[in-house]
């Protein structure tokens, strides 16, 4: 029953996320409301970590495969994207690389500065 109870809690939070998504006029998906909600419940000790840990880690472990169907859906969009594919690919590749470098270096830089300031 342990896993089932944990799954029950996770489903309940997913459902509340779904409700918030339906009621509030924002383009925020159920999962994002759910992360915030579960985090608050854990942090305030309303839910103990032990009450969701194993099933939670199991779901996170198999999550990568859940992202394959949306990626396979690319085959349905090929028709729309094809005529413009070169400029779309350039825009996507350049922007993804630049964002990764800038956000990573800025964070790394600030952490290093703080470490340096501390050690001096």
């Amino acid at each position, binding site marked *: 029953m342990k896993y089932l109870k944990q799954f029950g809690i996770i489903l309940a939070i997913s459902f509340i996320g779904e409700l918030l998504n339906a009621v509030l006029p924002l383009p925020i998906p159920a999962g994002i409301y759910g992360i915030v909600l579960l985090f608050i419940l854990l942090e305030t000790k309303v839910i103990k970590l032990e009450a969701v840990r194993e099933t939670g880690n199991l779901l*996170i472990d198999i999550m990568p495969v859940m*992202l394959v169907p949306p990626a396979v859906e690319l085959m349905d969009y090929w028709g729309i994207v094809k005529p413009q594919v070169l400029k779309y690919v350039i825009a996507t590749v350049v922007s993804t690389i630049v964002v990764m470098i800038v*956000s*990573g270096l800025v964070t790394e830089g600030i952490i290093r500065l703080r470490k340096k300031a501390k050690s001096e």
Partner: protein
Amino acid sequence: MKEMLTNSVFFGVFISVGSYILADILKNKFKTPLLNPLLISTAVTIAVLALGGMDYESYQTGGKYLNYFLTPATVCLAIPLYEQFEKLKKNAAAIMIGIISGMLTSFCSILVMALIMKFSHEEYVTFLPKSITTAIGVGVSEEIGGYVGVTAAVIVITGILGNIIAEGIFKLFHINEPVARGVALGTSSHILGTVKALELGETEGAISSLSVVTAGLMTVIFAPIFANFM
């Protein structure tokens, strides 16, 4: 036979899961980012569907059950976030500034390229939410008048790309702090990047999850403003 495969609830999902595991084994053996499990699994699944003359809809007879678990799994990302919260608080300023700088870079880089390559206004706003998780990005794209289907496709490509290039970029630019790696992955390539972050370590995974949430919510606010710039 083909009819049996088309109607099978398990065939498509088995191909996806099987090729994912196989690619993961190969990647650990040959240590090359080109054997990216997500990329291989997607490519193999599309190839098998195409060879068998099957469409996405028939794949989804089983694939939708994988999708079903995506929201509960996303909710569970709160667990590593909770476990790593102390580390997160200690680096709160660096993380927030990192995420904001990444998000602004995303908008500005898209604006610049849209100008250079003469995108229409609709094409420009289609790309604005490209770095954030699909469900938010599609909603934002709809709101600011983008081509929703193209946004969805670009978001997935962004995620797979980020997942593949991350380790190379980190090496090349000496991004070594787990916190910085998490911010870079979550901000640039959402949940698909977070999958890579979880692979790299617990801290990376937790910070990446946080970045996905934060960048997603901020994009809801800032994308409509940037939509006016072109």
